[in-house]
């Protein structure tokens, strides 16, 4: 990863984030959001997050040892812990530690 790439990437990410925050102040200072906007607002963020779960595991080699088992177990742990305690930090830490133990100890040929 070159320094130029990181610096440019940070600038782009910063501008893209800022754009999402300034946009309504530029365009909707007077108008009210319509039903289509509300529809997108309701469901798009959830759909993005679900797709990001798949994006995060898209390069896992499911056809060879350990067949994506650590990832699947990690996701199930995150899901169950969050359904149980509804504490985001607890769910993330438990799932990550489970996954780290799986790839470092249980399936160590994975490394």
């Amino acid at each position, binding site marked *: *990863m070159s320094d130029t790439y*990181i610096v440019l*990437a*940070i*600038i*782009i*990410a*910063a*501008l*893209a*984030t*800022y754009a*999402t*925050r*300034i*946009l*309504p*102040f530029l365009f*909707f*200072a007077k108008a009210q*959001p319509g039903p*289509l906007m509300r*529809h*997108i*607002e*309701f*469901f798009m*963020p*959830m*759909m*993005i*997050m*679900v*797709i*990001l*779960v*798949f*994006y*995060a*595991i*898209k*390069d896992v080699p499911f056809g060879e040892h350990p067949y994506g088992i*650590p*990832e699947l177990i*990690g*996701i199930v742990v*995150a899901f169950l812990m*969050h*359904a149980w305690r509804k504490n*985001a*930090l607890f*769910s*993330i830490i438990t*799932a*990550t530690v489970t*996954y*780290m133990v799986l*790839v*470092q100890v249980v399936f160590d040929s994975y*490394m």
Partner: protein
Amino acid sequence: MRIGEIIKLTIPVMMGYIPLGMAFGLLAASMAIPWYYAFFMSLFIFAGAGQFLALTLFATQATLLEIGIATFLLNLRHSFYGLSMISAFKDLGKAKHYLIFGLTDETFALLKTTTITSDEKARIYTWITALNQSYWILGSLIGAALGNIIPFNYTGIEFSLTALFVVLSMELYRKHPSPKPLMLALLIGLSGMVIFPSDKMLILSLSLAAGLLIGLRGWINE
């Protein structure tokens, strides 16, 4: 309102931002990203999930266009926070620019639930936003430092991202529980992973999701 009272207001955010910032810093360090870049990201981007996504994109050497589009789409929800802050931020002068920049999920929640007399608003809002950002930056720096100082096998720590996305999916679903968009997203994600070329999977899947969400609006709201 005294500064002590303002700090007290922001303690719940501190409890969340310092550990999450540390996770971000640790992850950056484990990817051999120097601490000052983690610092600049928290200073100039200031978006939780957005910064984690950025790290993932950096690691896969995503193009700048992809980084721009993916970050924009992921953070698009902030637009809806801005929409409901338009009247609250009116006539706040220069403070407004920083307040808009710092409008994260948690800052929005705090500003929205704090009632303030108008003459103190600019000062209190700015303090709340600045305190929140300082917790985030502090957490990032601690995490980046820990990652560089403590010799530890961090293999697998990047899974915190996957777990974060699972947790946020559940949180967002709970806000507007509707099985049809969820089924669509699961289908798009799964088939996108299998069918789309790996390096374009995110952009194609997100565009498809946006298209179907709008195109199938009638069916979804049945």
